[in-house]
Each structure stands twice: as structure tokens, then as C-alpha cells.
């Protein structure tokens, strides 16, 4: 809300600092690689138990299963990202350093997006091996995955900020995030299906929808964090 207290640090620089800080914590604590990623891979196994791999169903529904798994993993990653911020006076330090809420939001979204992108690569490779998926249309897959991941990360971070400091954040976050991100699940799944079916041309409409959603979510989050940051709201 108020003008930047810091020595004229540009927004992207603040965001980069926060993102680098989060990713550094991540490489040391290894929560994503040691907990979230194995969880996602277990879900891949569970889907095979539920849908019987012999029926040839897994390969056909792999895009949907992929994005459901990413959404579930994203809830964990986002919860972790906000929990880091609440430990022992981190917020006060960030405020004293003159960090702006908007920059913090962008930084956290960027860090979560990077973590999820790594997770998606490993998850996708696992599905290719276990579900016997033939990968085609790589450009479309990447063009859809980037905005979808950013949109999920932005929505998750926004809601985690709104629910931060409350005792029931962990149980509340899925109920808040999953309905809002339903268009992302839908769009990303259809785009992936089209790409894997060799009908990449049909996917661009969905890719456009994903971009619109991501931009909308990032803009909403920037406004909200900007308005809430200084009085401990986010």
C-alpha cells in the first residue's frame, strides 16, 4: 500500500531475492525432493492399483492423472512455502528489510513454480515409463505446463497468504484452492490430451485459457499481498 521503504529496489529484484532465498532453503531442507516428490510418485502407483494397468486405461487417462497429482503436490509445496515464512520472525525481518508484499508474492510464486516444474519433469518421466505413454507435441506440452503451473502456484500462494496465521490452514487450503483451480485442471488436461493425440493444433485454445488464468491469478495475488502485507495480513 505505502511506497517502497527500501532503497529503490526494483520489484523484479525483490522477487528474485525472495525466490532465491526460498529455493536455497529448499535445496538445504529438501522437503520437495524428499517428501513432496515421493508422495507424487506414490500417487502414480496408487492410480495403477485403482485403474488396473491391464485394461489399457492408464495411458489414455494419463494427462488427467498427471494434473491431479500435480495439484495435490502443489498444495503441499505451497503450504510449505508459507510455513517457511512464518517461522521465528521471518516476516518482521522482511518488513525491516523493506521488502514489499508484491515482491514477496512474486518471489514465492516463482520459487513454487520452479519446484513444481522439476516435480512435473520427474512425474512425467515416471508416467511415460509406468503407464506406457508415447510423448508427442513437446512444444505444446511445455506451452501448456508453464502457465498451468504458474497459475496453480499463484492461486495457492494467494490463498495460503489469506489463510496464514490461522490454525486450520493445512486442512482449509485444499478446499480453497481446488475449486478455484478447476479451470486449470480442465485446460491443462485437454491440452495434454490433444498434444498426445497428435492434434496439437486443437490445444492452443486451452493454452490461451491457461495463460489468461495465470495472468489473472498473479495479478490478483499481487494486489492482495500489496494490500495485506504491512499489517500482517499476508
Amino acid at each position: 500500500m505505502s511506497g517502497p521503504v527500501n532503497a529503490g529496489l526494483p520489484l523484479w529484484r525483490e522477487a528474485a531475492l525472495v525466490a532465491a532465498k526460498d529455493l536455497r532453503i529448499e535445496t538445504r531442507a529438501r522437503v520437495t525432493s524428499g517428501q513432496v516428490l515421493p508422495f507424487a510418485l506414490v500417487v502414480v502407483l496408487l492410480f495403477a492399483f485403482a485403474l488396473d494397468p491391464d485394461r489399457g486405461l492408464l495411458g489414455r487417462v494419463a494427462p488427467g492423472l498427471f494434473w491431479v497429482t500435480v495439484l495435490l503436490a502443489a498444495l503441499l509445496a505451497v503450504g510449505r512455502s508459507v510455513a517457511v515464512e512464518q517461522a521465528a520472525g521471518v516476516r518482521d525481518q522482511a518488513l525491516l528489510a523493506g521488502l514489499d508484499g508484491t515482491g514477496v508474492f512474486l518471489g514465492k510464486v516463482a520459487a513454487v513454480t520452479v519446484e513444481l516444474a522439476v516435480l512435473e519433469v520427474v512425474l512425467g518421466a515416471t508416467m511415460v515409463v509406468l503407464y506406457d505413454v508415447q510423448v508427442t507435441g513437446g512444444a505444446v506440452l511445455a506451452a501448456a505446463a508453464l502457465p498451468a503451473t504458474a497459475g496453480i502456484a499463484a492461486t495457492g500462494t494467494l490463498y495460503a497468504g489469506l489463510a496464514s496465521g490461522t490454525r486450520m490452514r493445512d486442512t482449509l487450503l485444499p478446499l480453497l484452492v481446488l475449486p478455484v483451480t478447476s479451470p486449470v485442471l480442465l485446460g491443462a488436461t485437454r491440452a495434454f490430451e490433444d498434444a498426445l493425440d497428435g492434434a496439437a493444433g486443437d490445444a492452443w485454445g486451452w493454452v490461451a485459457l491457461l495463460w489468461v488464468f495465470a495472468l489473472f491469478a498473479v495479478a490478483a495475488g499481487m494486489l492482495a499481498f500489496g494490500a495485506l502485507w504491512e499489517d500482517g495480513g499476508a
Partner: protein
Amino acid sequence: MTATERLYPRPLARLLAVAAAGALGALVVLGLVVAPPDAVQGDAQRIMYLHVPTAWLAYLAFGITALASALYLWPRTRAAAWDRLAGASAELGVLFCGLTLALGSLWGRPIWGVWWAWDARLITTAVLFFLFCGYLALRRVLGRGEVAARRAAIAALVAFADVPVVHFSVEWWRTLHQRATVFNPELDPQIEGTMALTLWVGVLAFTLLYLALLGLRYRIAGADEHRAAQALEAAITARRRSAELPADAVPTGPLGGAGVPAP
């Protein structure tokens, strides 16, 4: 309380409640007795006299929630009353949205042969229901205060803005993969005469019911805040009295006599 009283005076509340009860009574008579059974759907079509009004009210209620939230966030119009109104309206919206889904399902079973169809309108309504369930859950854990109200207002606006995106994406998805089959024009009743009148009475009755319940819920929220503020005030006064009491004064507070003795 005085502010609540001024915004929503008691006689108006009574008038709305009586009008809603009267209109609902008229709806019962019109819907069950006067209106003829539908030529195609038979008596099942009478569910529409409830389904259409509840659907309209769910959207109205969520719209009011979004509007009140926007007015709360706008610095010039910020007032605790908007926050209370947003919460009250969202509760009713979730209630009416749930009723819409349940009534639609009851109607769908005899007419479509299924309890549920993956139609764009149905899916959007279901997502809407869960969006605002989340909003209410968030309100519950946020508690009272200015920061809580601001967070709730942001959450309401994000949820409301998401509705067109959900609707667009779902509609696109369903029409790409299958032509609309459930909203078959042949199934649409030709709405005329007493049927149209009954439907309009239904919309009016439920709108009045919504306004009456909204006012009631708004007053309860106001009274609740008032009581919490009073309790806090009383606790502060009691604490202050026990700490500042001069030794020779007559102890009156609940902790009377526990004051620090004079040197």
C-alpha cells in the same frame, strides 16, 4: 447495535418476514393446486417452481457478497457493515445453491433418467457451491477484526471472479466433446399462463425470503460483534481496576482487595 438498528429497522424486518410467508403460501397453492401438470413432464415439472427461484437466489446472493466485499475493500466505503452483509449473504447463497443442486437432481431423475448429468451449467453450479463453502470456512477460521474482514473480502472477490472462468472452460469442454443433449429444446416446457405466473410468484417469494433471512442474519452478526466488544471492554475494565486500585479505596471490582498495598 444502534447502527444495525438504523440500517435495518425492526418493523421492516417484520414486514419482510410476513410478506415472505404470504408469498410462500401463495406459491404452495399455485404450484401444487392451481397450475396444471406439465404435458410432457407431468407433476415432476412442479419442482421447477422451487428450482428456478433457488438458482436465481444463489446467484443473487453471491453477487451481493461480491458487491459488499468490493465496497468493503474500497477505502471510501469501508465499513464493518459490508463485511457482515457479505458473510450473511454468502451463507444464504450456499444454502440456496445446495438446494438448487438437490432440487435439480430430484427433477433430473424422473425426466432425464439420471440424478446427475455432466452439463456445463450443472458443473459450474457445483463448483460455485464449493467455492463459497471454502469462503465460509475461511471466514470461520479468520475470526473477527479488520484484517480478517479484508482477507475475507479478497477471498470473496477471487471466488466470484473465478465463476465466469469456470463456466467458460466447462462449457467449452462439454460442447467440444459432445453436443448439448440434456437441455434438449423438446424437453423445455412452453411456459404460459398460470405456469408462468406460478414461476414468477416463486421468484418473488424466495427473494422476499432471502431478504428477510439476510436481515436476520445481519442483525445476529451485529449483535454478536457487539457482545464480543462488550465482553472485551468488561475484561479490560476489570483488569485495570484490579491494577490501579488505591489501597484506601473501597474495593468494588471482581478482584477487589487484591490491589497493591500503599507503601
